[in-house]
């Protein structure tokens, strides 16, 4: 099986495979393993093969796009025209996308193949990919463990070699934390670097589309293809996109790296995770980097800020699912109000309803200032303090998550404990900066440990080059 797109390109150029045979290989793995892993909700077998034959002809004719031979899965929250989409929720039963997300259009334009849609936590709300109307996703390294979430299906599909790469979404760590649990590279770009057009919204001021791959190089190439301004999303940045796929190869300058003291020293961080992060710190020091601990007294306020703001945004974003225009409608409705209430209560899962209720509460007139506005003020403080660190340091290092993958069912009845899995990843979303998780070893039970690197606004190129460098050093 091919780990990286570069390996695929080499094999294609030697003629040892065709794009069609590659798609068949991936579909073979899906047929073999998806039953137990539950990563893909659906694959587009015939269609993907047809596309593959056409791309093989384009390669032969010398006019193939840059992603010819890249086979991609989409988290079930990203639109692909004339294909089903339902955010792993019953409320979108039967729904078909009527257009493709901008990022999907750009991938297809470079001859990527979309293999199917992937299981996740319902509406991307969760950290374990257990909150799905289609059942839990399993970690391919140990099927009794969760793959992380919410982009768990997207991570496992890449981990188990069912596709070359996946697109997930990262609202508080939903790409990076599953990348960490599955031994992959997960990138959350700067807020606005990728268009959100065609992404089912969860919390619009946090949501970012991100990549799950085996290598940093593949992430760089995908980001380069997908990034840039978009007439359909006025929040998508007009800042020029640089050639990340070349820049990722550059040798990083030996700059200054910070780690937030509590993210390594706190008791909640498992000792093996701690050990591996400190090893990476030592590697950097021996390579000539200055690595220093910094304090971030606001750390404990990041998750509460995140939950107030994201549930508020979710409660408004999910108001559109009302059973009127598409998706599920309760057959028991007798009037318009019961149509709304029964449809939503019957078809949204428990965690989604919990978050909608919380969001409605923090936005209700009597509590708006005490919770919602307060959290927006704290968000500014968190962003400013994060910026201040990045004014003195090139990157901020931390574990991606305090532990390795936990067991299926272990935290399902304890939402607050589950939220802590995202304690180090949410900072990047609260502040809007880019971040990446790279694998940096396994614990004694063979589960992978992720190291997170946060960079400054729109400094994806610098962050990717540093991540590639550090990942190579950690592997040696």
């Amino acid at each position, binding site marked *: 099986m091919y780990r990286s797109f570069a390996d695929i390109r080499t094999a294609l150029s030697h003629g040892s495979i065709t794009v069609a045979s590659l798609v068949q290989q991936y579909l073979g793995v899906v047929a073999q393993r998806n039953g137990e892993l539950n990563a893909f909700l659906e694959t587009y077998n015939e269609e993907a093969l047809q596309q593959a034959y056409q791309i093989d002809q384009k390669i032969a004719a010398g006019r193939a796009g840059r992603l010819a031979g890249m086979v991609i899965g989409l988290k079930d929250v990203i639109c692909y025209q004339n294909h089903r989409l339902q955010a792993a929720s019953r409320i979108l039963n*039967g*729904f*078909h996308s*009527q257009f493709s997300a901008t990022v999907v259009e750009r991938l297809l334009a470079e001859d990527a193949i979309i293999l199917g849609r992937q299981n996740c936590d319902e509406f991307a709300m969760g950290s374990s990919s257990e909150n799905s109307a289609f059942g839990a996703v399993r970690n391919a390294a140990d099927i009794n463990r969760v793959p992380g979430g919410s982009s768990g299906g997207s991570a496992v599909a890449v981990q188990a070699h069912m596709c070359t790469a996946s697109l997930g979404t990262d609202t508080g760590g939903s790409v990076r934390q599953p990348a960490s649990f599955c031994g992959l590279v997960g990138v959350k770009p700067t*807020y*606005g670097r990728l268009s959100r057009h065609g992404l089912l919204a969860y919390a619009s*001021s*946090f949501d970012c589309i991100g990549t799950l791959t085996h290598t940093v190089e593949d992430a760089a190439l995908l980001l380069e293809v997908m990034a840039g301004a978009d*007439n359909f999303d*006025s929040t*998508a*940045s*007009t*800042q020029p996109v640089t050639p990340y796929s070349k820049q990722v190869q550059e040798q990083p300058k030996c700059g200054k790296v910070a780690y937030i003291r509590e993210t390594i020293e706190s008791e909640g961080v498992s000792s093996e995770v701690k050990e591996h992060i400190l090893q990476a710190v030592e590697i950097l020091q021996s390579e000539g980097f200055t690595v220093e601990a910094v304090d971030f007294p*606001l750390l*404990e*306020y990041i998750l*509460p800020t995140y*939950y*107030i703001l994201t549930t508020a945004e979710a409660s408004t974003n999910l*108001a559109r699912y009302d*059973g*009127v*225009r*598409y*998706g599920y*409608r309760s057959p028991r409705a*007798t*009037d*318009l109000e019961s*149509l709304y209430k029964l449809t*939503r*209560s019957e078809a*949204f899962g428990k965690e989604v*309803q*919990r978050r*909608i*209720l*919380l969001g*409605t*509460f*923090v936005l*209700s007139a009597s*509590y708006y200032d*005490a*919770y919602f506005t*307060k*959290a*927006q*003020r*704290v*968000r*500014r*403080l968190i*962003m400013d303090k994060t910026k201040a660190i990045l004014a003195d340091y090139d990157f901020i290092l931390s574990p991606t998550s305090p532990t390795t993958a936990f067991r299926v069912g272990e935290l399902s009845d304890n*939402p*607050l404990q589950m939220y802590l899995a995202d304690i180090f990843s949410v900072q990047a979303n609260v502040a*809007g900066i880019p971040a990446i998780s790279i694998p940096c070893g396994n614990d004694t039970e063979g589960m992978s440990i992720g190291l997170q690197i946060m960079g400054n*606004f*729109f400094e994806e190129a610098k962050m990717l080059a540093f991540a590639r460098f550090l990942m190579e050093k950690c592997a040696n």
Partner: protein
Amino acid sequence: MEITPESLEKIAHLARLQVAPQDREKLLESLNKTIAWVDKLSEVDTTGIEPLTHMTHEVNRLRKDKIEQTLTHEQALSQAPDHDADYFRVPKVID
């Protein structure tokens, strides 16, 4: 701050959700635990700090206000659970 059974009913109505009687107690407990946890933010001094309301770095991205058909009438109705030739249909609203 605590959510009472009465305020839960009110919030659920605002969110157009219906809480099943057998779920009420567990849900209240879990919501109140979460609220007690986010109440932590009251410890942070935010005097003089403006709320952060927008994350985008883009300012006033303007475009021409021109009419485009991105979806036909037929397409828009095609996925409705119930519709007629022109409209989405819902149960009778006015007696």
